[in-house]
């Protein structure tokens, strides 16, 4: 068993499942957004857009997608970093930056989705 303190779930299966499950959420959200924009997009007004994004189910779905994106990006970039960044100082600094960015996106995302 190879262990590493920074990986997401300490288990390869857990990471693998989270990666696939979050990918499904991201794909579903993309489909919903593309369809909605295709139907309403040609003459979209701010009121329409706000009305759509303000519905509770869209807010919940968007928050779920933001969280899925953060988990997906963390596992993916952790994998890339452990492949290509061989100096542990460089890797920890990079992953620290990733972690702070993702956390900021999540907090910012919540304030955008639920703050209006």
């Amino acid at each position, binding site marked *: *068993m*190879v*262990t*590493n303190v920074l*990986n997401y779930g*300490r*288990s*390869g*299966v*857990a*990471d*693998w*499942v989270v990666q696939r499950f979050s990918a499904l959420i991201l794909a579903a959200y993309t489909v919903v957004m593309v369809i909605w924009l295709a139907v309403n997009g040609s003459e979209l007004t701010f009121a329409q857009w706000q009305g759509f994004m303000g519905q509770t189910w869209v807010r919940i779905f968007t928050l779920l997608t933001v969280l899925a994106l953060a988990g997906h990006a963390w596992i993916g970039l952790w*994998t890339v970093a*452990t*492949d*290509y960044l061989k100096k542990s100082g460089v890797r920890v600094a990079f992953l620290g930056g990733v972690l702070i960015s993702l956390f900021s996106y999540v907090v910012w995302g919540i304030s955008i989705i639920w703050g209006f």
Partner: protein
Amino acid sequence: MLVSVYRYNPETDSEPYMQDVEVSLPEGKDPMVLDVLNLIKEKDQSLSYRRSCREGVCGSDGVNMNGKNGLACITPVSEVVSRGKLVVRPLPGLPVVRDLVVDMGVFYKQYQRIKPYLQNSSPAGGRERLQSPEDRAKLDGLYECILCACCSTSCPSFWWNPEKFVGPSGLLQAYRFLADTRDEATEERLADLDDPFSVFRCRGIMNCVSVCPKGLNPTKAIGHIRDMLLSRAT
């Protein structure tokens, strides 16, 4: 024919270099790459490479020929030569000992790690542990591996993490024992593989399948291990 061979003698060379040698092949024949190496060695005894059975069974002469790994003894020159030139390099990703000879230490370490032997503590029913023909058939395509390291050294995941990722060859062998109905250590074997590196560094690019000189499919075996890990965890 022009042959470009990777040369490196750590005792005399400060760094590796490619040596161009003109080799005249016998008329009307398509020799194997190993025959070409032998022709070069006749003229220059200092060229080092491993070879033994010269018929694709021992797995000693895995080398990189015009960019693709394979066994020199069963690869016809015509199959790999490009624009009249044959380029022979050592297997990529492993430390070079000299010329085409690589240090296989880390490769064998990963093989040792998966415990490549039958583990069964219950007494055998008769003189031997019998299997049904169906159960025995599950080992086909797994037990034939000759440990030539062509697959693992063509795998980028193994290049980047040779100490942590078991590699296609080791994982094919791991599944050979996971699939064996006589083996009782399935749980211990899976527990040892359930981390983000050992199995899950495989990204399924199938370089291993493309180069295996025995026509085996490590990617498929890795998929089976992943399924077993998944059903164990859920």
